[in-house]
């Protein structure tokens, strides 16, 4: 059994609930003990740090201070939380004034942070701590014949991710460890537009279109991603892309943990597969 402090992030409890559900279920199957960080708050995300720095830092630092008490690595399945918590953690280490001021702010809430937390992404934990080999050994329903486009998005691998920032391979290895085929494609780590989909929908949909077109052109039957924002843009907005660009995509976009779960023989319901907007049931039928 491996132990971690778990930081779900806001999306994993709402618009990305299939992520939250499948993470906990798959963790259990892989002997990973994820203990939810007690009373965690929003990491602040990109919007907060784009409007104020110290206050945004304080938002993230409360989580780091709470996590430090547990003595375990802080693991999040959300790529944006990962970048934000990691960046504030680094600024706290490297900028003495920032650290001093944030600790002064934390003291107002009876907290302090000594800089001892390691922030990690769940996909990195799967890859480095659990390893594709061990996951492969637990597969009961090999996904033989399934062509999957592993979509990394941005913030899992940039700016300080654990894999190559331009041509990553870790998710591809996880996909092949399940018996599926990871298609080779160019857009695997290109931007989906992230939260621009709300204020600048047309721009973001243009980026989503390029990603879906590329995945389809390489014969992918579905995509997998670890990132809640990417999943929503590619899945929930796929019908909008079809409307705007007169395309007819019908590409399911699974969370990595959902696909791992299927291969481990976990029932569809427990992986919240019915909550995906573009239904993955047809593509996954042979393995369920």
């Amino acid at each position: 059994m491996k132990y971690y402090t778990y930081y779900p992030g806001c999306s994993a409890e709402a618009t990305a609930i299939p992520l939250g559900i499948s993470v906990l279920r798959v963790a259990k199957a892989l002997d990973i003990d994820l203990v939810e960080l007690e009373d965690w708050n929003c990491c602040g995300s990109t919007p907060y740090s784009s409007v104020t720095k110290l206050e945004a830092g304080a938002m993230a630092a409360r989580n780091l201070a709470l996590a430090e008490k547990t003595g375990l690595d802080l693991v999040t399945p959300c790529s944006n939380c990962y970048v934000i918590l990691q960046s504030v953690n680094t600024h706290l280490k490297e900028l003495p004034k920032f650290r001093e001021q944030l600790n002064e702010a934390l003291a107002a809430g009876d907290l302090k942070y000594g800089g001892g937390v390691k922030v990690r992404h769940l996909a990195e934990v799967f890859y480095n701590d659990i390893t594709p080999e061990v996951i492969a050994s637990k597969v009961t329903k090999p996904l033989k014949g399934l062509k999957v486009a592993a979509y990394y998005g941005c913030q899992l691998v940039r700016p300080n991710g654990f894999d190559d920032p331009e041509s990553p391979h870790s998710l591809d290895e996880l996909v092949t460890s399940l018996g599926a085929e990871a298609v080779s494609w160019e857009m695997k780590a290109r931007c989906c537009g992230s939260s621009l989909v709300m204020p600048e929908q047309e721009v973001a949909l243009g980026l989503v279109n390029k990603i879906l077109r590329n995945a389809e052109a390489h014969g992918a039957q579905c995509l997998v991603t670890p990132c809640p924002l990417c999943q929503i843009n590619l899945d929930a907005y796929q019908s909008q892309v079809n409307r705007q660009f007169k395309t007819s995509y019908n590409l399911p976009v699974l969370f990595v943990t959902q696909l791992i779960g299927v291969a481990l023989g976990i029932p569809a319901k427990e992986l919240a597969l019915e909550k995906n907007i573009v239904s993955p049931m047809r593509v996954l039928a042979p393995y369920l």
Partner: protein
Amino acid sequence: MAETMVEAPAAKTSFIDEVCSIPGGDAIRSCIQCGICTGSCPTANNWDYPPRRAIAMVRAGLREELLSSNSMWFCASCYTCTVRCPRDIKPADIMHALEVLSIRSGLSTRKSRTPVMYQCFIDSAKGNGRVYELGMMIKLFLKTNPFSALKLAPVGLGLFLHGRMPLKPTRIKGMKELKAILDKARALEGAK
């Protein structure tokens, strides 16, 4: 460095200092204007002044022109520029620093809805300790263009029907402590 060789008026040198003083904003002085940031940017076509030019404008002291533009608000934080910059400048962080300055100076543009969206996000995160996506989206549309919500209605409905759009927010227990921490940080930020 090059810019110290040129006689610049005081107001012009202060813009670059201002940017450098924000975490993530430093290193801008070593830009060689190679343009790999602009070439790598997935949204550069939409920027009033694309990344390379925006950086040049910081160094030229074109404060108001840049801070009132839509430029940095199109940064999707993909960090492609950041991993490719040969001078380790972290252009994405600089864009975030410019956003901070733009808001702080009351210059943020109405041409992009991103500044309003960011504020709605923050209000939501601060109000409950966690972001409530539905509430945030409704507020964004009310504050900008309520009719544009109609276009997004199918997406929202789809999420709702799939159990991905809770109708009420989650509130953390430590709201009082969180508020005290944020208030203190805000006071410190204003005082410096």
